């Protein structure tokens, strides 16, 4: 089963064109959708999760027409939104049971089993009787995962899941997700590059409503080998360096400014070659050196 998105476009009433004729094919497994804030990731996620109507385009999940057969999609959908709240005065267990019924698990015994299993897996079993109002951010996020995983979904959409989690929680969370890719299409939408590099076998980079790159992360990194150069620059010279070279990113390392520069050959003596990572891929694409702006998205290593 794969998810086929064709020519999806969406414009908001205030004039913003959130999605511009997006086309993607997403197979089973972990798929990362990378892009900056305002790129259109959440709009795309909400459309796929049947919460929004696009202006044009089509989406098919296997043989289900996602846009027009919303009920069928919802039967097999797990959606963890970017922002959500909870009823503060209800316990996790009760609310999860409630959702289990809503998702069709109407038989009591099997429901109990599913709920228990999910609570254990998300490490919420010990606190299942506490009111959700008292949960920390990480616990709430895990609760959201539990809800999303109810009913064995075939399409799982996870929108910016690790923003706001501390490092330990983030690792736990990613571990949780990593198992899911076996039997479902899992779309992980994020602006945190590490999430994608750690989890996803395929990815796309999206910005301003357009897909700039569709690739397998490893292959994309491979392509950049030998083209990324690094130099430590004093702050006062930064402007000059930016003018003269193709700077793709600027970082601080222990208080000193470090620039990464794209170049087929070495840009200068002060520059040293550096082993590229997915972040470099990302910045390279964003700055226009790889992949198109307004051009057909480059498919690398398909």
């Amino acid at each position, binding site marked *: 089963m794969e998810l086929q998105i064709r020519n999806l476009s969406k414009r*908001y*009433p205030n004039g913003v064109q959130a999605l511009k004729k997006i086309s993607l094919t997403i197979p089973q497994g972990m798929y990362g959708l990378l892009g900056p804030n305002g790129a259109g990731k959440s709009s795309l996620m909400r459309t796929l999760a*049947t919460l929004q109507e696009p202006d044009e385009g089509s989406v098919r999940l296997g043989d289900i027409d996602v846009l027009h057969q919303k009920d069928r999609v919802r039967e097999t959908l797990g959606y963890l939104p970017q922002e959500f709240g909870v009823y503060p005065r209800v316990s996790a267990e009760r609310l999860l049971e409630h959702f289990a019924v809503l998702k*069709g698990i*109407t038989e009591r015994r099997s429901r109990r089993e599913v709920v228990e299993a999910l609570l254990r897996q998300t490490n919420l079993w010990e606190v299942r009787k506490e009111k959700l109002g008292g949960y920390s951010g990480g616990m709430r996020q895990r609760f*959201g995962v539990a809800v999303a995983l109810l009913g064995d979904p075939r399409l799982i959409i996870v929108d910016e899941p690790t923003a706001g989690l501390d490092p330990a929680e983030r690792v736990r969370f990613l571990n949780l997700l990593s198992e899911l890719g076996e039997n479902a299409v899992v779309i992980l939408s994020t602006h945190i590059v590490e999430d994608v590099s750690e989890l996803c076998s395929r990815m796309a980079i999206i910005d*301003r409503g357009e897909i700039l790159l569709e690739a397998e992360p490893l292959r994309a990194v491979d392509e950049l080998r030998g083209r990324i150069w690094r130099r430590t620059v004093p702050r006062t010279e*930064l402007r000059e360096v930016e003018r003269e070279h193709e700077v793709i*990113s600027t970082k601080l390392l222990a208080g000193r400014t470090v620039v990464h520069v794209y170049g087929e050959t070495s840009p200068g003596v002060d520059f040293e070659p550096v082993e590229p990572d997915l972040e470099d891929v990302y910045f390279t694409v964003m700055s226009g050196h790889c992949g198109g702006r307004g051009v057909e998205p480059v498919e690398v290593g398909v």
Partner: protein
Amino acid sequence: MKLREIFRFEVEYRLRQSSTWVYGGILVALPFLMMHAINGAGGYMNAPWGIAFASIVTGLLAVLVTAALFGDAATRDVAAGMHPLFYTAPIRRADYLGGRFLGALSINAVLLVGIPIGLLLASWMPYMQPGKFGPFVPAGYVHAYLLFILPNLVLSAAILFTVAALTRSTLATYLAGVGLLIAYFLAIEFAPASPRLAALVDPFGGNALEHLTRHWPPAERNTRLIGFPEILLWNRLLWLGVAAGVLGLLHLRFRFAHPGGAGRRKQRPGSTDRERPGIAPGGPVVVPSAPREFGGRGRARQTVAIAGESLRQIVVQRTFLAILAGALFVTFTFGWEVGDLVFGTSSWPVTHLVAASVLSGPVSTIVAVLIAVFAGELVWKERDVRMSDIADAAPVPDWVSLAGRFLALAGMIVLLQAVLMAAGMTLQALQGYTRFEPGVYLRILFGLKLADYLIFAALAMAVHVVVDHKYAGHLIVVVFYVFTMFAGQFGLQHNLLVYGSDPGWVYSDMSGFGPFVAPFVWFKLYWAGWALLLALAANLFWVRGREAGARRRVGMARARFTRAAASAAAVAALLVLTLGGFIFYNTNVLNEYRTPFESAGLRAEYERRYKRFEGAPQPAVTAAELRVEIHPGEPAADLLGTFRLVNRTGSPIDSVHLVNVDPAIRTRSLVFDRPAERVLVDGEGHYSIYRLERALQPGDSLRLSFDLTFRPRGFPNSGIPTAVVENGAYFDRRWLPMIGYQPGFELVGAEERREHGLPPHPPLPPADRSEGRRTQLPGDADLVAVDAVIGTDGDQTAITPGTLVREWRENGRRYFHYRTEAPLPFGAPVLSGRYAVVEDRWGDVDLRIFHHPGHDFNLERMLRSMKASLSYFSEQFGPYPFDQLRIVEFPRYTGGARAHPHTIAFSEGSAFLTRVEGDDVDRTFFVIAHETAHQWWGGQLVGAQARGGALLSETLAQYSAMMVMEKTLGKEQARRFYDYEMDHYLRGRQVFTNREVPLLEVEDQKYLHYHKGAVAMYTLRERIGEDRVNTALRRLLQKHRAGVPPYPTSLDLYAELRAVTPDTLHPLLRDLFQEITLWDVGAEAVRVEPVGTGEYRVTLEVAAKKVRADSIGVETEIPMDDMVEIGVFGGASGDPLYLRPHRIRSGRQSITVTVPRKPERAGIDPYGKLIQRKKEDNIVKVEESAAAGGVATDR
């Protein structure tokens, strides 16, 4: 299954909220308290009808609870941010919406059982007066719940749930709830004329209930079950259908969609791709430095900035605009018929009526709602959008936040008032009235009302701050508001104790706000002191940061109670104490403060102590000399007077009893012209007894001189005296001492008498007992010769009955000397004001109207009526004995109209401002004619103090006025009047305390001597003719004009009428006057057959019944054998093809007549001339089925 789960979850969730139990408590407490506060019209308050009515009323208030419950059920998911989880679950819309709706509905339905429980509890309370509640009738409660409470709940729930689910805003839901209530009140106000239609289109059933029970007499009202009458069931079905429709609409329109992404606003052309800054510009951010100020000026600016921003946020909200639209709508609908007068005529929209009645009446409540709602919004605005963390951490002191918000609220109120003022002026202009008086608008809207609103706003804000729960806060504010409105019912009379209250005010065109301004201002300043304390409390408990929980907040409050706060509190407390003390000094020391119970107690005591002196021989006043000095500017009046008292009884009088009924009058001295010793003086009842050294022999006279003064000091808590004001003084006989025990001062109401331990009021002596022959006027004077000199301001005119002998100026004041030509009934009215005068003549009689300049709309009409009345009455009844007739206007602080010898005093606005247009019933004309008629009936003819006495004055005046109206304005107008009188008679019957009696025995029942009397006399005239009736009246007057004992009674009138009535109609006379008779006739079917020559034979099947009723309406059927009109009508014009009286007996009968043209309708008593409760079935429509002679029925 999913529906069931959602339903269960909703119920569980609701049960876990403490607010649910609070609502339940309120729904029990409200009806419980209501039963304490209302004093029924004497019937059982738990009669099935009363239960239904109370259920509807409480149900209306419960709409707010419904708004809260269903608003939460529909918007909770979006508000909590949980909606993405729900909307992506595989559930159907119907399940989701249905489960939520039904869950909330069942909870609400259970909570509403609290209403019958509360009502029941009230009836079981042991301290309730016996007789107030009757036996427990369970069916009454069950019927009320099933017929009214439940269907009303379903309707309001459907509407509110739909609004909440589609707008996703709890505020909008609340306002929809309020809007529902307002729409309901409007629907009642503007109910369509047909009662059946009105009963159908009434969503909550109040009108339907009223229609059903409209004419139930007291006996039925106590016991009769509502049952399941047809029209009520149709009404319920109709509105349940509407509810279903609304829910269907919801199901159609609701989407599981992300809110905010699906706007229907026009898409702006041209994509605005946001410009993104270049990649990683690098380099740190450099912020230019700016000066910051945290001192006084800075704080002031911050306050103003917060105020401005908050106000802007309020005003752009769609809900605000919706409410504003609602207020304007109410203004125009209520205001269109401003000045709610009888006969559906209205008044000219003079500015004070618009500003005070329209814009400050029902609209006032809307403004209060706005204040309550937006006080909450202002206090919660950061928390609502989750910005509170950022806002709370900013360097803004608490008081600046609070002050800024309050200023915004004040600004909103000012804005509202400005809009309302514009609306008021527009309303006036649309009605063709252009005398806008912006000064009056400003003083009322931006002075008086603004002060009220600001004080209320302070309370609303403080409540919302201290109560940390928005909806509980709203509820508390509403409860508080309702409480202040009804505080009097709960025994809190003193205005120092009820938040925001004051003694009230009335605006008069003649004298402005008169004596009301000063007390108003003092009270408002006092309450402003309290408002300040509330503001300080709000400041101490201002919510900032994340600490909730009562204990934490108290701790924080204590920490905030700095020296500055303490001194501010001290200042406010000082303000409260000094102003309160000053007010208390005025209301309780300078004036007497009495609760209504205490005042009644005084009168009871008066009766207990002195009634034994009733009937003791006392001298009568035969002449009076008065020297009055009116000082309108102060205001004050001084009065020197001398009575000539004559012993008209057969025995010597050894002591004179004097009663002073007006507590505002102080007697400076009281001197007899011969030795007399004061043996009793009772300050409370103002009763004093003077023993004469030598008894006054029969026929002898003595003189009594008195010196009185009216100088009000300070102001009382209520009932500010208005007898003398800056322009428009009006006082009368009641200022002067009265001779002998005055029964008129006793308590009259049966319940009041019981409360004070008095036996029931003895009825007036029956009309046929000779001992009852005493004059009807205050029992100490017959006809009195008056010589009065009245001094007033140089620019005012003083008026009292009599001929103006001399007029002069002295010391800048004007003096008028009046003397009566012949002794006249002694009412001694004195009026003084700056009048404009319009003069005319009728024969030898001078006609004059003294009116406030500017109240000149109806002068022509009034003169016309005076002339027509004088003409008709002098021709028919007897000559007019005076050479002048005057109408004088007095300020509207007091109402009504009073007829004195050749002087009619009218309250401002009643006849002067009535607006008569086109074919409206000319009420002004009628009222002037009625009062002019009193110059004969009540003036020349004075009745005995006995039962039926009012017949001789009021009934005859009504009849006379109707005749003049018919002669001058046409039969149609008179007929409409007649219908109005009939309706009011029938309605008056339902009030329990009005024990009905036959006309000849009427005591004080206005609905009888005004309305039934008019009906009876006019009906009689229709049957025996005008000449005969007038002859009877003329003879009556001739026989008793002299005005000496024995005085005429209703029996004398009856005898004269009987003499002119043919024998065959004597039974009718008896039915109308001697008995309480009701008829019930109806047309059941009509058959029509053409008879060849273009004529038609009409056969009418009718049923007839006649009953006699007793005082509480228990009916007994009697055989009927009366002449009743049968009418056949055809075609467009209302003229009958056939109209003649037929002899009708009890039961069914058939009547056949021939008519020249094709008939359309036929009926029995088509003009409603019989006294019937149900007139709708008098006429049936004819449906053609010529040859076959089909039977047509229509009801």
